[in-house]
C-alpha cells in the first residue's frame, strides 16, 4: 500500500546525532508582544482514545456536505459546519491494541528507529516548531496505565514516549503554580547545578565514546543528544522562571479518575491555549477512564468486545457518546473565547483533532479510523470520503501534513505520507 521504506539505520543514526532539531532559542524573541500586526498563533490539540468509536454508530449515512449526524456525531451538531469527518483514513497498520499508539505517528514504535524522523508524533513535530515561544512547547495529558500501556500518543524523535501529565491537578500546577521569590533562588541554584552536572557528564560521555566500538558509540549518541536537549530545556526554564505564570481563574482540584476529570482537563487545556502557555496539547482518553463513573457496571474494554450483543453495543456507545460530548464542550469553550486583536475565536486558530488508533475494537482492526477535525482555519462542514479501494487509499499522515502546513511548519511530508490531503481546503 505504501512504498516500502528501505532502512538505512547507520546513516540515519549518524545524521540523527547532529541534525536533531532543538527548540530555536534565538529565533524565539518576543515577536508577539512587540508588533500588533502579528496574527494570532496557530494551535493544535489532538485527542485520542484507546478503543475507537463503534462504527455502526459513528459513520454518517451520506457523505459530502449533506452528511447527516450519526448518533455518535450528534453531540457535535452545533459545530457541524466547523468540522470535517474523514472516512477511510488510516495508517495501513495492523496489531489491534498493539497498534493504537500509532495514531499520531503512523509507524509502530518498533519500527520508529528506521524512519527518517524517528517516528515522531504529529503533536511533537508541531511542538518543535513552537520551540521556546511558549512556556511549554507541548502538553501531553494521559496515563502510563491502560491496556497494553494505554493510548501512548506522543512520541519523540528518539522513539521514546513523552511521559504524560497524569491528571488535572498536575496540569493545574504546571500552568498556574508559581514559585515565590525565595524559592526562585533555589530554582536558579538548581538550574545552575544541573547545568554543571550536564557539562561534567557530557565530558564523561565523550571520554567513554573513545573506548567504544561503532555501534556502542551510536547508542551513546542518544545520551549526548539528550544532554543537549536538556540543556535547551534548562535555558528555556531559566528564561520562563522570570516570567510570572498567569493567574488561575479556577481552583485546583483533586484527581477523581479520567471519566470525571475529563471536563476539567479540557477546561485547563483551553486555558493553556488562551494564556499562550502552550500551543500544542494532546489528550489521551485511556488509562483510568472508568465506565463505572458513568453508572455502567461492565468494563470499558470488555464492552468494546461487544460480540454484536446489542446490550453491550448500547453501553459502549453510551461511553463513547460521553467522550464526544466532552470534546464538543471543549469546542464550545474554544469558540466562546475571542482572540485579542483579531475577529476570530480561539477555535478559528486551533486545529482540534479527535480520533483513535483503533478502527473497530470488536475485530481489533486499525483501519478506517474514526477521524474528526474541527476549527483551525479549514473549510469545514463535510464528510470527506476518501477512496476505499486497496491500492488507492490515502494515508492518514497526509492529513497530518496538511495540519502541519497550516500550523506553519515548512514540510511536505510526515511519516509515510504521500502528500497533503486532497479535498481539505483552507477557509
Amino acid at each position, binding site marked *: 500500500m505504501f512504498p516500502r521504506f528501505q*532502512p538505512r*539505520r*547507520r546513516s540515519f543514526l549518524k545524521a540523527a546525532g547532529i541534525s536533531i532539531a532543538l527548540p530555536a532559542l534565538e529565533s524565539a524573541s518576543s515577536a508577539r508582544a512587540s508588533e500588533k500586526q502579528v496574527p494570532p498563533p496557530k494551535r493544535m490539540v489532538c485527542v485520542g482514545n484507546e478503543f475507537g468509536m463503534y462504527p455502526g454508530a459513528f459513520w454518517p449515512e451520506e457523505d459530502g456536505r449533506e452528511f447527516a449526524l450519526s448518533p455518535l456525531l450528534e453531540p457535535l451538531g452545533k459545530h457541524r459546519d466547523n468540522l470535517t469527518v474523514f472516512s477511510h483514513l488510516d495508517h495501513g497498520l*495492523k496489531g489491534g491494541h498493539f497498534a493504537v499508539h500509532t495514531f499520531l505517528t503512523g509507524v509502530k*514504535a*518498533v519500527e520508529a*528507529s528506521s524512519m527518517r524522523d524517528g517516528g515522531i508524533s504529529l503533536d511533537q513535530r508541531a511542538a518543535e516548531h513552537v520551540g521556546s515561544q511558549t512556556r511549554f512547547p507541548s502538553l501531553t495529558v494521559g496515563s*502510563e496505565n*491502560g*491496556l*497494553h*500501556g494505554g493510548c501512548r500518543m506522543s512520541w*519523540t524523535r*528518539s*522513539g*521514546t*514516549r513523552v*511521559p504524560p501529565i497524569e491528571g488535572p491537578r498536575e496540569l493545574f500546577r504546571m500552568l498556574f503554580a508559581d514559585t515565590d521569590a525565595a524559592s526562585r533562588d533555589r530554582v536558579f*541554584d*538548581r538550574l*545552575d*547545578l*544541573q547545568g*554543571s*552536572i550536564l*557539562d*561534567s*557528564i557530557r*565530558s*564523561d*560521555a565523550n571520554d*567513554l565514546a573513545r573506548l*567504544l566500538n561503532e*555501534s*556502542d558509540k*551510536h*547508542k*551513546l549518541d*542518544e*545520551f549526548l*543528544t*539528550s544532554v543537549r*536537549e*536538556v540543556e535547551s530545556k534548562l535555558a528555556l526554564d531559566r528564561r520562563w522562571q522570570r516570567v510570572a505564570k498567569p493567574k488561575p481563574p479556577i481552583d485546583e482540584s*483533586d*484527581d477523581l479518575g479520567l471519566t470525571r476529570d475529563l471536563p476539567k482537563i479540557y477546561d485547563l487545556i483551553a486555558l493553556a491555549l488562551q494564556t499562550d502557555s502552550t500551543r500544542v496539547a494532546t489528550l489521551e482518553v485511556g488509562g483510568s477512564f472508568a465506565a*463505572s463513573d458513568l453508572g455502567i*457496571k*461492565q*468494563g470499558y*474494554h*470488555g464492552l468494546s*468486545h461487544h*460480540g*454484536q*450483543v446489542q446490550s453491550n453495543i448500547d453501553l459502549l456507545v453510551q461511553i463513547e457518546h460521553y467522550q464526544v460530548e466532552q470534546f464538543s464542550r471543549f469546542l464550545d469553550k474554544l469558540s466562546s473565547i475571542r482572540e485579542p486583536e483579531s475577529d476570530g475565536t480561539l477555535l478559528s486558530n486551533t486545529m482540534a483533532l479527535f480520533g483513535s488508533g483503533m478502527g*473497530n475494537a*470488536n*475485530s*481489533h482492526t486499525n483501519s478506517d479510523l474514526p477521524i474528526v477535525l474541527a476549527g483551525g482555519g479549514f473549510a469545514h462542514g463535510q464528510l470527506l470520503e476518501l477512496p476505499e479501494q486497496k491500492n488507492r487509499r490515502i494515508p492518514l499522515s497526509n492529513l497530518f501534513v496538511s495540519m502541519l502546513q497550516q500550523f506553519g511548519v515548512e514540510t511536505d511530508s510526515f511519516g509515510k505520507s504521500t502528500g497533503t490531503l486532497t479535498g481539505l481546503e483552507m477557509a
Partner: protein
Amino acid sequence: MKLLTVNLGIRLSLAAFLTSAFGSFALCDESKPERTKAQSVQDFLNDYCVDCHNADDVKGNRSFEAIAGEITDEESLVDYQDILDQLNLSEMPPSDAEQPSSFDRMQAIELLTRQIEQFHAHRKPISTQTVLRRINAREYRNTIRDLLKLDTTIFDPAQDFPRDQTSEHLDNNAEWLVTSSHLLERYLLAADLAISKALLPLEKPIEQTWKFTKNFRQQPEIDNVHGKFNRYEHMTLYDVVGADKPEGAYGPILAFADGVPHDGVYEIRLRAEAVNRSHPYDEAFIGTDRERPFRLGIVPGEQTAGELHLPQPIEPLLAEIELADEPTWYTVRVRLDKGYTPRFTFRNGLMDVRDLWGKLVKKYPEQFDRNPKGIVEVRRAAIVDGKLPQIRIHEIEITGPIFDRWPTASQELLLGDDFSRVAQSGLLSTDEMRSHVQRFASLAYRRPATDSEIEKVMRLIAVRLTSGRSPVEALADGFKTVLCSPNFLYLGENTAGVGGELDQYALASRLSYFLWSSMPDQELIHLAQQGRLADDAELTRQTQRMLSDSRSDAMIDGFLDSWLALRQLGSAPPDRDKFTDYYRHDLAAAMREETDLFFRHLVDENLSLENFIDSNFSFVNRPLANLYGIDAPAGPGFAKVQLNDRRRGGLLGQASVLTVSANGFDTSPVVRGVWMLENFLGTPPSPPPPDVEPLDPDTRGAKTIREQLAMHRNVSTCNECHRKIDPLGFALENYDPIGRWRDRYVRSAKIDSSGELPDGESFTGIQDLKKIMLKREPQFARAMAEKMLAYATGRMMATTDRPAIDKIASSANGTRELIEQVVLSETFRSK
C-alpha cells in the same frame, strides 16, 4: 545492524522447533528405503517444496528456488534451519501435498544437519553483541537501593521515569533501552532525591510519640453516620482494599495526615478488636470467613498523592496483624518515609459495602426498624442497626523515628568516618572530598574510577564551593553528578583481548544484573579485582551463592515477566461483576506469588524442567486453593501442596498464566494458543497475512468459539498457522479468564478441549496435552534456554546463537543448572 538482528531473532524463533526431540522420530522409521539414489538438498526441495515456496507464490514468506545448495551467509542459514526443523517435525510438506519417502526425508535431514554444523564450525567469530546497555528502571531502583543502602519499601527513585520499552516482553534489551531528554531530566531529579535521602538530615532526629484516642473521622461518605453513632470514638474498617468504590477500606488518622517528620522506623501500638466475626447473617451472602481471625493491615499513605481514604499508587503492606475478637493491644514496627502516614486496612474484610448496605436491609427487613430509603438512610441503618463484620481501632500510638544506628549506613557509606565531624562543622578538606568521591564513584561505576573521572567531579565541586555551597553540600552535588554519569547509567561492557570476552569487572556486572538486577557486591568486585571470576568453578560457586541471596528474587520476577509476559498480569482487569473474588482476595498478587514460589522452588531444589510442563505440587494460599477447588493450607499464607488432580500442575495449570493469556472477560483459543507458541514453546507464529479478513466476533449465536474458528481454519491461508495455534488454545478452554476450571461455557455449551497437533498427534484435553509435551521436553528446554540467555545478555538471540542455546538446554539437568549453564556459556561471558 539492528534491523538485521531483530529480523534474525524473529525468524530464529520461528525456526526454533527442536530438532533433537523429533530427530529420532524420523530416523527410527523402519519402513524400507524405496529409493536409494543419493539426492542433493536441492533435488529434495525441488521435488517437495518449490511447488509452494517459489518466487511467485512465496507461501509462509519462504522461497526456496534461489537456495544455492550451500549455506553462504546467515540469511540462508535461517532458511536451512527452518527447513530442517519443519522436516524433523513432519510439519512440512503439509499432509495434502506429495510426501517424500521416509528415506528421502531422513537423508535430507542428515544432509541439512551436516551442512548447518559445518557452517557453524567455520563461520567467522560472532557478530552479535550486546550493544551499550543502559540500566532499566527496575535495575536503577535496585542499584540505588544497594549502592546507597537506602530502604526502598516506600521510596522509588525511578517512580517518574518514562516506562522502558520492551521487546518480546524483555525489559532489558539494550537496543530498546533508549535514553531521551525526558529520562535524563528525571535522572537529574532522582539523583538529587536519592543523595539527599541518603545523607540528610545530618543531625539525628529526636524520637517523638503521637497519641490518638478519639476523633477518628471516617471517609466522607460514612463520616456523618459514625459521628452520630459512636462520636468518632473509634476507627471502623469495613471493605477490603480491592472494593470498587470502597467505603471504610482505608483508615487514615486524619489528625496525622501530614505524616511522619523523618524517614525511619516507627513503632505503632494500637488497641483493636474484631467485631461481628460471627455475624447473624448468611455466610455466603456476607462472604467473610467465620472460622478465620480478622487481619489488620498497615499501608502508607501520602496526602498530596490523593484522598487518604482511597487507593494510592504507593501502598506496600507494611505490617499485618491477626486480631483477637476482644479489644487487645498490638505493637508493630514499620518503615515510614517523611510525609507518609500509616493507614489501616481490613485484609479479609467485606466486599463492596456500598452495595452491601442496601442488600442487607433488603434481605433482612425484620432486623431493621423502619423501612429506610435511599443510600443515606440505608447506610445509616446498616451501620447503626446491622451487625456487619468490622474492625475497630480504639487507640493508636506512634513513636519514632527509631534508629538502630547513627550515623545511618547510608551516611557512613558516603562520608565514612568523617560523618560525625562533618555533621558538626560542615567542613571537609579537598583531599578528604577527593577520597570520598573516589570511593563512591568506584562503587557506582562498578569498577575503579579513573583519575580523570574523579577530577571532573572535583571540578564540579569546586564550582559549587565558589557559588557559596558548604563543603558537605558541594560534595553531595559531586555524588549527584556521579549518579548522572554514563559510567553509572550504562553497563561498561569492556572486553579483554580478542574474541569479545568481557573483562572481569564487566563480567561481575553482567552476572549481578542477570541474577540480582542490581550492582555487584563487594565479593564479586573483589574477585574481579583479583582476576579470579572467569574461572568455571568460581563462576558456578558465585552463581549458587547469588541464587541463595534474596536479591535473586529480582531474577525470578524479571525473568518470569520477560519469559511468560507476567508483567501484563492485571493490565486487562477481569470483569468485576463476574470475578468478584479476584478483587476481594487480591488474587492477582496471589497468582503471581504462586508462580514466583514455584520457580524459586525448582531453582532451590534444582528440580527438572519437566515440572514447568507438569508437576505434582504447587504453592497456594487459601483464596487460590478455593479458586482451584483444592484443599487449602492451614495457615494464612502460602504453602506447598501436593496435587493429585492433574488439571493443575505445571505452569499451564497456574492461574497467573491462564489469566495473562485471557483478556479479563472471556478466553480465546487463538490468544492462548499464540501465547503458548510464543512463550512456552518458543515458536511464535507468523503474523496474519496482509489481506486476511479479520474475525468480527459474534457471541450472540449458539456457535461456540470452536465452531467460529472452524470457519477460518477452512481457509488454507489461515489454516497454515491456525492448525498450530488453535489446538493448543482448545486444550486450555476448560480454564476461565481467571484460571478457574469449567466444564461448560456460560451459555451452557459443553467445552470440547480436544485437539490434534500439526504432526497428527491428538489429545483429549489439557492432561493429555501435558503428557505429549513431556515427551517433547527438549523443545521446551530450548525455548526457555533461549529466553534466559536473551535476558541474561540483554539482547535478542540470533541464529548464530543456536549452538550455544542447544548446548545450554541439553547440558542442564535441572532448573538451577540451567541458570549455571547460561552463566558458563561463552555467549554470556562475551560482549
